[in-house]
């Protein structure tokens, strides 16, 4: 989880979001042992502080390098032009939930 979250999640590219991205810092971390816990149910960050600190350090180093290198993009407003072209099968229309015009549009 990052410390700066956009006010509303949209598919727009906004100057504010691009600026936030360049400054956002991870603030919440968990540690799982996938060998014993493939379903990621038990957070081991408190039980294994050394392992946790080591992996967190590696993650943050990579995160900062990647964030630094990433280009940003000019502002753009999502128009769902793809979503508007979708023809859903009858059973989806009859399903009552979502008709392809959900707020997130097509993915």
């Amino acid at each position: 989880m990052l410390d700066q979250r956009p006010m509303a999640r949209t598919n727009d590219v906004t100057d504010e979001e691009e600026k936030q991205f360049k400054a956002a810092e991870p603030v919440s971390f968990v540690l799982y042992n996938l060998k014993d816990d493939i379903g990621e149910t038990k957070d081991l960050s408190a039980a294994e502080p050394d392992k946790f600190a080591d992996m967190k350090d590696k993650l943050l180093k990579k995160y900062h390098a990647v964030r630094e290198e990433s280009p940003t993009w000019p502002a753009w407003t999502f128009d769902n032009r793809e979503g508007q072209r979708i023809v859903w099968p009858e059973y989806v229309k009859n399903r009552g939930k979502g008709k392809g015009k959900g707020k997130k549009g097509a993915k």
Partner: protein
Amino acid sequence: MQSHRTLLALLSAVLFGTAALNSVAAERPNIVLVLADDLGYGDLACFGAQDIKSPNLDQFAKQGLRLTSCYAGHANCSPSRTALMTGRTPTRVGVRNWIPHGSPVHVRKEEVTIATLLKGAGYSTCHVGKWHMTGQFNEPGVPQPGEHGFDHWFSTQNNALPNHRNPDNFVRNGEAVGQTSGYSAHVVVDEAISWLRVGRDKSKPFFLYCCFHEPHEPIASSPNYTRLYPHDDPSYSAHHGNVTQMDDAFGRLMRSLAEQKLDGNTLVFFTSDNGPAITNQHPHGSAGPLRDKKGFLTEGGIRVPGMIRWPGKVKPGTESDTPVCGVDFLPTVCQIVGIEPPKDRTLDGTSIVPVFSGE
């Protein structure tokens, strides 16, 4: 005498040099990368699905190496594909989320894709299916599949539209194709087979990047496949049938490679771009025992089926739980082909060739 000796040396250099080049060329394998769309870790019989029929991929698994800790480069489509093509963590490249049609986001010209590297090394290259590495698809000013190294491309910006049935949004080498006939996985494989038979330069090895639209929404499945899954909920039959639709098309591609006697010296890597979507309309995908789904950085979002078939090099019926990732594809292929990965930028992947022999 001196001049004769020089001539002899030159001659032998030419002869042996050519022979050496030919033998390298003969050994260099063809590379096929097949990508499913939103296929979860638990969505194939060979990865534990109880209720999905995937006979072709199950057989494929028996012929090669099953990767049980295979990670997509991201939890959704555009960044995951960017990782496969560039060997770089997609945020580094600026692709941080799915790219809607019209968006300025794209994989920039200065990025070096595996297709560009292989083309430069003398490969004939082709992309078929979903591209999703630019919002401004088939528009001037930003690179299209052709500018990212593909000699031949038959591609869509994102999903097949209006759905998988008779899609009308393919572009072939810059020209809109218009309405096609059939279901997307078969339309895509038809193009791939046609390119393999008559399109490619047969004096060269080839790289085929085959990106299915299935089982991503908007789903449309042929009755040939939905009838395999009788169920009260037609969405269930459609989703599972959609996986089988892809599996059947994959089987056609593999049989065509065999018929053309190309399967022996061809490395085929099958994987998915991210975990299962599990939407309101189609909640029937599965991440198996993993937590969460597409869009999450927990295992269900990023751990995907992975399989490699390469006769003589990868032992049939083997399995590895060594973690591998989409960013590893570029450096792995570079090692196999004997070319240098780009040195002027950070690559996040590493060659997984040692995994082939169980190391």
